[in-house]
């Protein structure tokens, strides 16, 4: 294929602004998918994605339009997956920036637009949902043009739902986005921008050919890892897997590698041929590091092997997921898992419960801390229980948060951000009604309930996005919770010193309500080191009798006692105290917003 006839592009948008609907319409219009076969949102293949309306894994579909070959590379919509977005964008020359004409620019619109600009992509702005009565195409066009430094009249107006204006979008892709400019004569180089795992065919690499070409049964090599393989099949998604004999510069497609070990092919690597290897690999991706960590424990401790197996399988399709075995005195055997962000954590938890039918207990999330010890050692701490006592300095991750809200809510958003140790950076009016606030915040302050608080304080109008901005020292302490005198590792928290007292008090109060009375007094304490900062007591119960038991009652009372014992087996043992699973979630439910 002549590279001049190829266009590679992505669609980027804030969640629910209509990215997937537009993709569907494009597939339909280009006859890639017959109307009768059209499942809504073909690109979102995972059940969970479909339900949540978000796209998790990038995919690439080739369509034909007016003599051109267009490769639509799908991107995940959410900030947690921005590394995947940026990967996808590196495989493109342009992007459609879709904005809901009724909602206007939202936080992820900005985040995605900036990513596209960083990647030198041509941006084609598109207003969607102009068929809605509340749509404001003129106002939104001004906002978008302002953001891109473009003219409002250059902004396309469409309804992906009805199909209105979609043809013009395809025309604009051909007109505005430049063709790839790979070198066909040099040794082949292809960028692996994603991969998936097929249990029969092994690793399937999604590639963008930059230079040269590949053909089937040619020995290939991943340059960074040195892994060699001979693809069983090469092809493109149309949208089903369509085998071809060759993939040439500028094209997007897949390689069925036959590799059974996912670790042998890394996304971001460059693939070349064994026979005529390229001199240097393409610039790779910055490796993403999980920033949010939580312990995952099976509620039924016998399910540990199943949890391990499930995590292994998830990892095949989700390279960003990190997990290492963790043993908690309170919760038994489980895994400390690292996630890119809160949504990623939520999705992993849901997939484990739904696709693998596991019942999980997830501890309160925390962030990654960089700790310098007095002895001069430097380490990264992913678990509050592992925070060393002899620390000299603790660095915590900070984010640059973008919040977009109607102007009436600016006060309450600022209050929330200040409350969470935020540092105001600046504020900008996007329109007369809508304001963008930029804050610097410790990531640790948002992992628990920031987003819920933001939503409730702005009646759901706020949109929020963040970017990691670096590590900074913090005056942090570890608050331990002791139940019956025994520290409960799963309940330890790292908190800013100023918040430790209040949060500790809230937490022990909460636990007092969650832990049922036992046959003895159970003290619940919050402590920093050996200093107790809050204390409550679950008083011993004084009566637990079956009032009446005569000849006619015996079987029933026996079953009652057996049931009582079974109920206890579902609890976790902390020392001699039986703690219901719900109590471990107490820390997640601390309503710190209400004072």
């Amino acid at each position: 294929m002549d590279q001049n006839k190829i266009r590679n592009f992505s669609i980027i948008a804030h969640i629910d602004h209509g990215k997937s609907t537009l993709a569907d319409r494009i597939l339909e219009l280009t006859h890639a998918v017959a109307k009768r076969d059209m499942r809504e949102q073909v690109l979102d293949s995972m059940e969970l994605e479909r339900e949540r309306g978000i796209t998790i894994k990038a995919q690439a579909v080739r369509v034909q339009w007016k003599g051109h070959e267009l490769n639509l590379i799908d991107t995940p919509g959410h900030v947690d997956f921005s590394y995947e977005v940026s990967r996808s964008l590196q495989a493109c020359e342009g992007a459609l920036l879709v904005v809901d004409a009724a909602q206007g620019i939202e936080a992820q619109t900005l985040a995605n637009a900036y990513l596209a600009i960083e990647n030198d992509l041509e941006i084609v702005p598109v207003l969607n949902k102009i068929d809605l009565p509340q749509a404001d195409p003129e106002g939104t066009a001004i906002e978008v043009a302002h953001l891109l430094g473009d003219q409002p009249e250059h902004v396309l107006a469409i309804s992906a739902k009805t199909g209105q204006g979609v043809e013009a979008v395809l025309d604009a892709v051909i007109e505005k986005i430049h063709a790839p400019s790979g070198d066909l004569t040099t040794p082949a180089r292809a960028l692996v921008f994603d991969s998936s795992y097929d249990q029969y065919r092994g690793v399937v690499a999604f590639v963008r050919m930059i230079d040269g070409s590949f053909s089937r049964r040619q020995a290939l090599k991943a340059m960074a890892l040195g892994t060699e393989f001979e693809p069983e099949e090469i092809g493109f998604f149309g949208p089903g897997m369509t085998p071809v004999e060759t993939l040439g510069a500028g094209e997007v497609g897949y390689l069925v590698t036959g590799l059974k070990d996912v670790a042998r092919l890394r996304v971001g690597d460059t693939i070349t041929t064994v026979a005529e290897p390229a001199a240097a690999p393409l610039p790779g991706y910055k490796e993403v590091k999980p920033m949010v960590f939580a312990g995952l424990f099976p509620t039924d401790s016998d399910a540990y092997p199943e949890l391990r197996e499930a995590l292994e399988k998830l990892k095949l399709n989700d390279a960003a997921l990190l997990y290492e075995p963790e043993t908690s005195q309170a919760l038994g055997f489980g895994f400390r898992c690292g996630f890119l962000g809160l949504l990623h954590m939520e999705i992993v938890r849901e997939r484990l419960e739904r696709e693998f039918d596991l019942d999980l207990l997830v501890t309160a999330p925390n962030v990654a801390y960089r700790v310098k010890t007095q002895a001069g050692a430097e380490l990264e701490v992913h678990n509050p229980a592992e925070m060393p006592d002899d620390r000299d300095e603790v660095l915590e991750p900070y984010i640059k948060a973008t919040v977009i809200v109607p102007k009436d809510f600016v006060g309450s958003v600022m209050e929330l951000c200040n409350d969470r140790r935020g540092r105001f950076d600046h504020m900008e009016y996007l329109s007369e009604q809508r304001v963008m606030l930029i804050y610097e915040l410790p990531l640790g302050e948002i992992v628990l309930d920031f987003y819920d608080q933001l939503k409730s304080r702005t009646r759901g109008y706020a949109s929020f996005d963040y970017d990691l901005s670096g590590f900074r020292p913090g005056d942090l302490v570890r608050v331990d919770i002791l139940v019956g005198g025994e520290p409960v590792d799963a309940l330890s928290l790292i908190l800013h010193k100023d918040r430790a007292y209040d949060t500790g008090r809230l937490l022990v109060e909460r636990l007092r309500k969650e832990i049922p009375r036992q046959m003895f007094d159970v003290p619940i304490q919050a402590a920093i080191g050996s200093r107790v900062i809050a204390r409550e007591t679950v008083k011993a119960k004084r009566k637990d009798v079956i009032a009446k038991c005569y000849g006619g009652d015996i079987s029933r009372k026996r079953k009652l006692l057996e049931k009582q014992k079974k109920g206890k087996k579902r609890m976790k043992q902390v020392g001699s105290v039986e703690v219901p699973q719900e109590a471990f979630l107490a820390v997640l439910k601390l309503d710190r917003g209400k004072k």
Partner: protein
Amino acid sequence: MTGGATHLYVHIPFCASRCDYCDFVSLTDHLDQRKRYVDALLTELELERELLASELDTVYLGGGTPTLLEPELLRALLERLPAAHELTVEANPETVTPGLAEALVEAGVNRVSLGAQSFQPHLLDALGRRAGPSDIRRAIETLGEAGIDNLSLDLLYGIPGQSRRDLGADLDEALASGPEHLSCYELEAKPGTRFSHDHGADLLEQAEVLEDHLELVVERLSASGYRWYETANFARIEPGRDLRSVHNLGYWRGHDYLGLGIGAVSTAADRRWRNAPSLSRYLAALERGEKPPRETEALDEATKLRERLMLGLRLDEPLAIAELESVLDRSALERFVDLGLVAVEGGLMTLSRRGRLLGGAVSSDLIVWSEDSVAA
């Protein structure tokens, strides 16, 4: 068991009205069926007689309201039941007349269990009882005059609206009449009774108050010369006489017993069965000379041992550990010893006072249930 059961229970389901909290098998109409019912009971007795020992320790006529049988019919029934050392009849205060009391004594009844429940008019009202405080006082007096010298009073605590003072007053009044035996029950609000429906919210709120109530009952009665010999039962300490209920001790010690009548339960020969609660089906079966419809449960050795443990721990008598070894969770036992809930000495275990107040939870934990793996 060799020699057959030595305890016989006979259920008389008829009641003048149904108390709001009651979940026993009771019938407020069909009074015209009383004669047929008594005949059916006697037929059932004949059909099951081989399960009984030649000499019985106890016969217990419970209900319902046994004293709602006409005196003649009651007497006829009692005369045809096998003789026993202890013959108890349950009575409701408003049914106790001098004539009835005499009939009971003449028929050999030597123990009466009187359902007083409370002496406070507003609490009797809340329970939907027919008797007032004066009926109770009169009944106690009448039974004493007729020569009943082993009287048990039933009292309830945890009645909605019952204060600690109310309970204290009830205990005072009960003690003043000097009964040989007292049964004190926490009101169990069974789901589905009219009572739970009407008082659900109150009942939930009073959980902590009930702890005070049970402690008050145990303290007051123990201090007044009564032996807290079973979780809910107290016997007056009297030299030369053991005033505990021999019949009920039979249940708690795991003896076999035969129960006659609708809804009655029997345990004998490694089986337990419950007669269906339907009066018409009961009558029809026995009038054809057949055993009434019933549900049967097989009792294996482990189940019987678990019940021995569960029931034995209700008593103030020590239990022999060796016999119960196979169903006893040793680590739980050690934990309870450490907590001062159980004392172990010379191969016997006894619950402490606090252990008895927590007896349900203690026995639930001490018993190794079928699917348990004993904690290491």
